[in-house]
């Protein structure tokens, strides 16, 4: 090894504050950790999701409450905040779904190669971001 070749850094017992900031994750790694993060997020927001399900479905009156949450807000939450949380949930759902389909695809038929890992990660991220931006624009009334 010549002097020019810098020694590759070794990561053991990754420290969340010292190492994570400099650790360059490959795209497949981003898909993976975001899959986990989006899952945890939906788990924590589950009561809110069921609240949306409940108010939108239970009666005509509750449906009005549901729609007005997106127009004038609900309780101490202004409408933009409700929309922001819903947008985060939309992203989480889309990412979790597309990363999950990628998982099933890899599980069932396909030998996993480094190249496929990367290209499928790009597709996964592209699908979830494009759909999130599209639906987010609709949610915030841009079209």
């Amino acid at each position, binding site marked *: 090894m010549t002097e020019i070749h810098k020694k590759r850094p070794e990561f053991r017992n990754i420290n969340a504050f010292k190492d994570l900031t400099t650790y360059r994750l490959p795209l497949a790694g981003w898909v993976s950790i975001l899959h*986990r993060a989006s*899952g*945890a997020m*939906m*788990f924590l927001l*589950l*009561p809110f999701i*069921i609240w949306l*399900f*409940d108010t*939108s*479905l*239970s*009666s*005509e009156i509750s*449906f009005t409450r549901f729609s007005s949450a997106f127009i004038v807000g609900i309780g101490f939450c202004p409408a933009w905040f409700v929309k922001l949380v819903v947008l985060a949930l939309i992203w989480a759902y889309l990412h979790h*779904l597309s990363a*999950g*389909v990628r*998982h*099933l695809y890899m*599980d069932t038929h396909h030998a996993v190669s480094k190249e496929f890992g990367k290209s499928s990660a790009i597709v996964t991220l592209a699908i979830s971001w494009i759909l999130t931006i599209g639906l987010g624009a609709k949610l915030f009334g841009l079209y």
Partner: protein
Amino acid sequence: MSVNYGSKRVVVGAHYGLKDWLAQRVTAALMALFTLVLLLQIIFTSGDMGYDKWASIFNAEWMKTLTFTVILSLAYHAWVGMRDIWMDYIKPVGIRLLLQIFTLVWLVGCAGWAIQVLWRL
């Protein structure tokens, strides 16, 4: 260091995967199917989506059954996923147990609420 793989592994009751691995995937496929079915119904609803149209989607008996199954699937799926997270990051057994109990209570509570919403429709 004790062996934690193969036939001589130390069994500590973490299920060692296959059942939960499979359950997680089967429930995931079910939820994906539900998403598709719901999406198609929304797309093929004519006119603006008001309360009547939205409620009538979930009023159909087969849709109620599918939604019920999906609620249970979601609880199981989220349990497997959250347990994985706790097992990966939380090492002290006491805290891990507390978080796992919290997860179960949280999920059973949410599933109960969702089923109640579905049932009184």
